[in-house]
């Protein structure tokens, strides 16, 4: 029940712009402007509401976050382009006109598409409301049969169960604009080199696939690949690949120089504990 739209609505109704309706994006606004004038959704209608659309954006200025504003501005720019084109005397059709026409058609098509989904949304609302009036039978078994139920399989141990509880109990995130995707975790090649060296030292040899099963993100896989190249350059490992694109085998050959270098990296990255020659399995699960 909490999402961007609601938050926005609360802000505006409780804030200074009481008169300003809140629209879920530029298409929502366009549709409502067109509806207010009782027009069909056509290109002509689009042209007719351009000014109002721009005016609306002005009113919203200063209240929108960047994300919100961008969507509106892109549409506004297209609308303005079209308006300018109509005001100027028609000249020969050139590439620019074509591009403009394309932009216009695209905007129009997207608007129609949005309208279709909006109508479907209405359908869903009606469907949910109707279904809310029907109640499925969800009654525990009669005592006579309850004892026959197969033993419950929890499928988890105490540790997993605790982790599950932690997740279930963690406060659900307040809706904010996620920026995680902009900040992929930094991965250090040297750090990965230390991880791999420790592991290879124990195992003697391994496949690249085996060395990266626990990598998780692609970026870590890439980092480990680069790390292997570095180790190769230091003469710490040797490669073997039977066929092109086949399984890549990595063998620990080790040499004093490489060890010294790795020591340095390990200290640099604060991973010396794991690198320590006596270290057991890295706890990287």
């Amino acid at each position, binding site marked *: 029940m909490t999402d961007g739209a609601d938050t926005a609505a609360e802000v505006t109704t409780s804030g200074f712009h009481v008169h300003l309706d809140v629209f879920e994006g530029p298409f929502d606004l366009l549709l409502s402007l067109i509806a207010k004038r009782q027009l069909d959704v056509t290109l002509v209608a689009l042209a007719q509401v351009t000014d109002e659309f721009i005016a609306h954006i002005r009113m919203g200025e200063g209240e929108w976050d960047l994300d919100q504003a961008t969507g509106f501005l892109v549409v506004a720019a297209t609308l303005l382009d079209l308006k300018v084109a109509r005001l100027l005397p028609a000249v020969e059709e050139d590439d620019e006109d074509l591009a403009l026409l394309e932009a216009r058609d695209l905007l129009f098509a997207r608007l129609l598409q949005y309208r279709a989904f909006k109508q479907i949304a209405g359908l869903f609302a009606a469907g949910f409301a109707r279904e809310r009036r029907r*109640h499925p*039978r*969800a*009654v*525990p*078994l*009669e005592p*006579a*049969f*309850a004892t*026959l*139920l*197969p*033993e*419950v*399989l*929890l*499928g*988890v*141990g*105490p*540790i997993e*169960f*605790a*982790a*599950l*509880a*932690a*997740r*279930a*109990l*963690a*406060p*659900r995130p307040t809706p904010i604009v996620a920026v995680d995707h902009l900040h992929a975790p930094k991965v250090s090649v040297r750090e990965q080199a230390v991880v791999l060296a420790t592991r290879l030292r124990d195992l003697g040899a391994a496949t690249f696939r085996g060395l990266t099963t626990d990598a998780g993100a692609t970026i870590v896989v890439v980092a480990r690949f680069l790390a292997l190249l570095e180790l190769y350059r230091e003469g710490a490992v040797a490669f073997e690949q039977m066929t092109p694109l086949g399984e890549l085998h990595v063998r620990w050959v080790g040499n004093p120089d490489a060890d010294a270098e790795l020591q340095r990296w390990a200290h640099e990255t604060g991973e010396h504990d794991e690198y320590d020659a006596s270290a057991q399995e890295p706890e990287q699960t």
Partner: protein
Amino acid sequence: MSDEHDDEAPDVLDVIHDTVDAGHEPELSGPLPDARTALEAVLLVVDEPVAEVVLAQVLERPTEEVGRLLAELAAEYDEQGRGFDLRHVSGGWRLYTRESCAPYVERFVRDGQQARLTQAALETLAVVAYRQPVSRSRIGGIRGVNVDAVVRTLVTRGLITEVDTERESGAILYGTTSYFLERLGLDAVDDLPPLSDYLPDPYALDDEDVSTST
């Protein structure tokens, strides 16, 4: 799709319909079903025997009338050889599976894919385990969804049980059972691993849950 009427109903039902006055209209809109239909609907969702008086209140009919309707329904189910059976048990009425069908029901229950808990059930169980004694509405607040059915399932599976009621609200409070501990391989609730080890950092220190806003 719901307002079928009784014109085509077989003879048995006419008797009942004659006794039903269609004039009652509670506060709600839409064509209302007759008392027999409403009764069946209510019986479908109740999970423990309901007294005639209660049903009468819900249907806004005299208790004797409801009592008669119930008896008639029970007889009708018998006559029609239905797979369910309306029985008067410990002061109330509840739908049961017909006794002769037990072999099939048993097979369904045994072979059912019901051994494993659903993810939703498991998470709800986790909330109960770490927050007991806890009410359904608090669990629902934490989970962000209605948990009534899941809680009932967990009770049926013997994993949680009613342990107390809340002083002010009278809400039932749930806790885990010894069967739960057994299934998890623990001796006591205290042996559950401390949650703080698994909480994301900012919340590590606060073992009290933060989001109980229903």
